[in-house]
């Protein structure tokens, strides 16, 4: 297989033109940390775009940064940190769930997957911070969309549809993101000993309060973590400036006291804990086990899990106040990695389930992304036609014929 390493946009353009002309499907990788996410791509050549790297514009007072998509997240975060800023959607690094070393995720990969961490519930997703782009579409043409300002309704918001398109529409060559001041202090209110549904109620109460919660996760007792050994915990995070954070954490603890034992964890411990929630580190040990990422209305999380617990041997962790559920099956999940029962459990609630980890054989045969009905699938396929009619960019990564 041809393995190419473009240095810039012009190289990307040339590669795509060749791929279109010679009908050679391309697999696009950047940091390569999420190659296990999605269906295996059957490509004739590999284009590694991690060489398109570097921050080209950063104006802290304008809350904006432009970078080439191969720029390592670590570099972006270091630069932002020096100015007390951050990517507020809290990009996650899923490397470890695939047995890879962390730290090589790139900004482009994060945007292509729309990967957001616990702060998603307060600050929005990656897609909400993606302001502008340049890209090479599967037609072998360079185009741009969006801009460098937050408020912009000039034409269709193509950033939104490229975000989360997993490289199936275009190769990003430059991206502009919104950046925000970072909270200087973090406190986490921990409520122990709650059941799944009591924890979800507690998280809903916290989210419905005016305490500006920036993370709400529940770790059931059967999931071991390093930082806490006291059984099931619901964790509620507040961030910001000194007095405000103490006040809000105390207010939450007071409010949640009737639900269970409350304690407040300090900044240092909190950071490590939320990193493990962000990166799904609870599920890094048994990499032969299928792992699902389920997005439902927050109050539906426990019901989906209860339904599945009745049918299979699973372990679950809840983020996004119950709206994001990670579900790991034991090794006996069956040929479809549990797809049938997971989607049956999700269906009555609305939402979607993505198979994040499974072996290649299973991934080839199973719907990794949530199956779409005919009308929606039609739109998806026609959008693909618009950007990549020859199906040369990551073909099949999301859906068989896309």
């Amino acid at each position, binding site marked *: 297989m041809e*393995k*190419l390493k473009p240095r810039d946009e012009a*190289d990307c353009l*040339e590669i795509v033109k060749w791929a279109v*002309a010679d009908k050679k499907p391309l697999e696009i990788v950047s940091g390569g940390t999420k190659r296990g996410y999605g269906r295996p791509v059957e490509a004739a050549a590999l284009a590694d775009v991690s060489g398109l790297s570097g921050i080209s514009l950063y104006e802290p*007072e*304008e809350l904006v940064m432009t970078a080439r998509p191969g720029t390592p997240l670590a570099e972006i975060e270091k630069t932002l940190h020096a100015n007390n*800023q951050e990517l507020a959607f809290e990009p996650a690094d899923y490397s470890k769930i695939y047995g890879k070393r962390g730290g090589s995720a790139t900004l482009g990969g994060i945007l292509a997957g*729309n990967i957001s961490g616990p702060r998603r519930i307060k600050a929005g*997703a990656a*897609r*909400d911070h993606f302001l502008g782009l340049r890209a090479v579409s599967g037609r072998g*043409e360079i*185009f*741009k969309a969006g*801009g460098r*300002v*937050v*408020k*912009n*309704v*000039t*034409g*269709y*918001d*193509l*950033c*939104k*549809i490229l*975000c*989360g398109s997993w490289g199936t*529409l275009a190769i990003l060559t430059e991206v502009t993101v919104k950046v*925000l001041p*970072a909270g200087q202090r973090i406190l986490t209110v921990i409520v122990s000993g709650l059941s799944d549904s009591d924890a979800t*109620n507690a998280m*809903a109460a916290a989210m*419905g*309060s*005016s*305490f*500006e919660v920036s993370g709400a996760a529940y770790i059931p007792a059967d999931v071991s973590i390093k930082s806490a050994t006291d059984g099931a915990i619901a964790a509620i995070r507040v961030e910001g400036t000194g007095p*405000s954070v103490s*006040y809000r954490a105390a207010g939450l603890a007071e409010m949640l006291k009737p639900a269970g034992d409350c304690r407040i964890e300090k900044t240092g411990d909190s950071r490590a804990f939320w990193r493990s929630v962000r990166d799904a580190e609870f599920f890094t040990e048994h990499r032969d086990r299928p792992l699902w990422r389920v*997005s439902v209305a927050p*109050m*539906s999380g426990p019901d989906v899990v209860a339904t599945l617990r009745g049918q299979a041997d699973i372990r679950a962790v809840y983020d*996004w106040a119950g709206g994001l559920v990670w579900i790991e099956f034991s090794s006996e999940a069956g040929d479809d990695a549990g797809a049938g029962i997971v989607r049956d459990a999700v269906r009555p609630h*609305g*939402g*979607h389930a993505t198979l994040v980890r499974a072996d290649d054989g299973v991934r080839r045969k199973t719907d990794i992304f*949530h199956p779409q009905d005919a*009308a*929606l699938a039609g*739109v998806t396929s026609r*959008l693909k*036609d*618009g*950007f990549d009619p020859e199906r040369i960019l990551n073909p099949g990564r*999301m*859906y068989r014929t896309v």
Partner: protein
Amino acid sequence: MNSAPEQAVSLDQHSALEMPELDVDILGRRNEIIRDLRALVPGEGVISETSEMRVYESDGLTAYRQLPFVVVLPETVEQVSAVLRYCHKTGLKVVPRGAGTSLSGGALPLGDGVLLGLAKFNRILDIDYANRTATVQPGVTNLAITKAVEGRGFYYAPDPSSQIACTIGGNVAENSGGVHCLKYGLTTNNILGLQLVLITGEIINIGGKHLDSDGYDLLGLLTGSEGLLGVITEVTVRILREPETARAMIIGFPSSEDAGACVGSIIGAGIIAGGMEMMDRPAIHAADEFAQAGYPLDVEALLIVELDGPEAEVTDLIGRVEEIADANNASNVQVSQNEPERQKFWAGRKAAFPAIGRISPDYYCMDGTIPRHQLPKVLARMRELSEKYGLGVANVFHAGDGNLHPLIMYDSNVPGELEAAEDFGADILRLCVEVGGVLTGEHGVGVEKRDLMPEMFSETDLDHQQRVKCAFDADGLLNPGKVFPTLHRCAELGRIHIHGGKIPFPDIPRF
């Protein structure tokens, strides 16, 4: 019934705006079409009398008028679906309309098209406090959502100044903003789900009460698509708990440069205010006279900064903003002491458009966004342009996010002034693009900025956008003549211009 439709876009003594050519065949079949539509939407749902259609002939951009071919007001999603399926089969154009407050002519009717009004879709379907969502029909007004949930201490964040009148469907179609966008986002950041009817009549559900799309983010794509991709028949929004306290400050400056620098320093200090608005001298005077907001009148620029959150935090931040303001030459600082006073500070800003309407026979509201540090340059150039065109301009500015609303004052009874105002406006928008900004921050392209799109986008850029249109509406029946300066046929856009046989890139590194 049966009155002949006006055959040309009649524009208030206005330079001609080119709209899609009228379909003579459709015009000739008017009676038959009206009869068919009546069968689909019985009762009062089809309006064809000229006198009754008059109210629909323009939207908030009143310089442009066009009587619709026929008005249809469906009540159910099944009716919307049946009407669109019929239009698709018949080759009949469709213009969706909410409350008609668009400032870019997005809801301007077509002489050979159905004006599809969503006003009857005015029910709130579900409020779910535990999941913090509200599901409503598209004709529900923006403010009605907040009204429905405020009893429990919740609200819907985006708050366009037109919020009493404008509909959530229109907000989604325009990706509307408001004065709290910097901290709480635009419409696109605050909606979770949509029900959409395609021009084929197919009904699709996008998102719901959960977060993020698993496939392509159609929710994001639809938001701001200006009625060109489908008709929205249901919207699920995120509702938020009201902050514990909110206080507003008004800060006067001897120059716009100082005010602009102050905004930069506040953000640079890591403070994201709930709202940060700026007005220049003409706007301050007009707004204060209109709303008795208590603004200082001896300043060149005024900032309204709203801080919200826990009491302790707000008090702390007010102190810090005061220091920053002093360091930036503020001549005058007032802090609201109670809720009525906070409301009063905002009343002037929120009434800025009508306030200008009172001091000038007509005004033309622009909506460019610029990188904030370019403000002094843009204001200086605007003053030059104002002299060149001989027209006054007042500026209100969503300062936190760089969204400018220059209000150009003119008198449509003076020959040539409307044209001058339009040329002036176009020059301002070109300037916004030139300094790294965009043509429209929140009002949409519509017909108004359509022909300026090439200032910002190349033909290839626009073709990539138009192919999105093709994925939803290959025949171009939904709201044609808006957003895109030239409509290419989808078949033409589909062609690929690359031929095989080339030896690939000897220079590109392999690994």
